[in-house]
């Protein structure tokens, strides 16, 4: 090793400890959420989807308030009119303004989609969390129950529940929740099972932290990102579910507008006025598309493995 001989003492220089520099923070500390938000903003497709959904929500809130027409107001002098200055999307077979009906439908469909998905996520997280954390007998009983319920086709239970409790927005949410929580329950249980073996949980236990605090303060924040991602991807399913049930005559009751009802009415009028199907179809599809793309973006943004990368 001749090289070592060439290095002399005076090649080195003592620069000393500079305490201030050591402690200085070279870039701002980012919390988990700030980091996720930063990455969502960078993901152009996901961010655009988020903006589009925001616009749709605003339109759904404000159009029915400020429109000169009422969503249920019929006008026999103006049946199935085309697109015009007065009726931006035309009118339907009963002369109702389609512009206000589309946004009224968005209100109903988005509300049902969001709350059905939210309720499913909350119930699923609770049951899955308890099942995964407690383990043992409670876990076994819950998992047997879930396994059996999983085998029963969702839609059939939903249809029956709708038949029993009657039509309406709240009924739809309840009917879709009765079996809908099972997916997120299975998923959360798996995550909790994986997490509870990790050292930070053990540390908490050793320090005598009560189980409920471990679950609420340590385990749930760790799966929250995944829950939100799942929630986003579950909304399209709930919107489809509402549309399907309204289509077969079990959804919200007329004259309430929902996207499913608009599509159903549009298909009836296909020969006369195709725009009555094509316009609601455009908004249903773009909403679902935006939710799917946003879900993909969120999945990447919350993935801890990708953290710190750009």
């Amino acid at each position, binding site marked *: 090793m001749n090289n070592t001989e060439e290095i002399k003492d005076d090649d080195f220089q003592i620069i000393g400890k500079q305490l201030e520099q050591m402690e200085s923070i070279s870039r701002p500390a980012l919390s988990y959420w700030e980091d996720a938000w930063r990455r969502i903003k960078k993901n152009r497709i996901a961010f655009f989807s988020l903006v589009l959904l925001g616009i749709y929500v605003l339109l759904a809130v404000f159009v029915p308030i400020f429109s000169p027409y009422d969503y249920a107001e019929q006008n026999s002098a103006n049946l199935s009119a085309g697109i015009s200055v007065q009726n931006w999307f035309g009118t339907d077979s009963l002369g109702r303004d389609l512009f206000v009906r589309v946004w009224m439908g968005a209100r109903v469909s988005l509300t049902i989609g969001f709350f059905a998905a939210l309720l499913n996520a909350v119930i699923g997280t609770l049951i899955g969390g308890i099942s995964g954390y407690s383990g043992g007998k409670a876990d076994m009983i819950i998992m047997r129950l879930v396994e059996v319920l999983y085998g029963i*086709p969702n839609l059939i239970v939903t249809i029956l529940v709708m038949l029993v409790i009657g039509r309406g927005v709240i009924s739809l949410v309840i009917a879709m929740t009765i079996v809908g929580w099972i997916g997120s329950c299975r998923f959360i249980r798996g995550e909790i099972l994986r997490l509870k073996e990790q050292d930070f949980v053990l540390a908490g236990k050793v320090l005598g932290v009560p189980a409920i605090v471990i679950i609420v303060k340590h385990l749930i924040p760790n799966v929250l990102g995944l829950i939100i991602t799942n929630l986003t991807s579950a909304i399209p399913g709930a919107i489809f579910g509402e549309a399907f049930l309204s289509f077969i005559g079990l959804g919200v009751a007329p004259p309430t507008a929902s996207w499913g009802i608009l599509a159903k009415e549009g298909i009836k009028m296909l020969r006369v006025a195709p725009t009555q199907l094509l316009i609601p179809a455009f908004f249903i*599809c773009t909403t679902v598309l935006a939710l799917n793309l946003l879900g993909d973006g969120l999945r990447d943004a919350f993935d801890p493995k990708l953290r710190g990368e750009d």
Partner: protein
Amino acid sequence: MKKYILKRIIMSVITVLILITVVFFLVRLMPGGPFTNPKLTPEVKAVMEAYYGLDKPLPVQYVQYLKNLLHGDLGYSMSYSNQTVTSLILKAFPYSADVGIRALVFAFSVGIVLGIIAALNRGKKLDFLCIIIAIIGTSVPDFIMGGILQYFFGIRWGLLPIAQYKGIEYTILPMISLGFATLASVSRIMRSSMLEVVNQDYIKTARAKGISEFQVITRHEIRNAIMPLVTIMGPLVASILTGTFVIESIFAIPGMGKYYVDSISSLDYTMVLGMTVFYGVLLVIATTITDIVYGLVDPRIRVS
């Protein structure tokens, strides 16, 4: 393996029993009775109620219902006079099965081919095209797909008939609208599965041994990549079956879905009940078979 199959079958029998129980009690909770037809005289009504044991307490009725079910007796339809639910199902089911099987074959064959093409041309234009088809498929509900296809192919261009079910040309639009969403998920799964397989060591080995590219793709890559598709068969069959509800009502196909929707709107409870049980059992059987097949194809599943 025997133990695994046995466990699956026992599980599905329990599921079917619970399904029937839930359906039975939910139907009893529904508003309105089964014999509310005003044409029925009180005597006839009493006889029918006695025949179905509706005058007895609920637990007895439940046992009676199970017994009738074992005989394939689902009762009389309320809106189609003098017809049993079983006979109506037997009449309608072949149409639904025909549409459903066509849609499944269409979805799987085209979906697999698209997935393979996308994976082999990763990052190129063809891949992009396949991804777009998959995105459209997952974002467009089947009834809207049906309506749009009807409008363009039937009304605008006059190429294909848009209603009824009388020959091969009548089956094309229902098949596409019913199968499109499934096609999308099949192609997505096939694509990612292919991309995963391509990096495996046995593919490198096959190449290193000098096997022709065509052989590597067909005999090694596709064969292994197709495996994950088996797992989603059950849910996909379920989604296609329920999809027939709307598709049949849009295209006026005299299948089960159309009867189901009509029965709901005419409050024909016996019909709804019978068809629900029929659908439920069918779906549970489909999922069970999928699980067993997957166990047979992939030995790793049996262990866990």
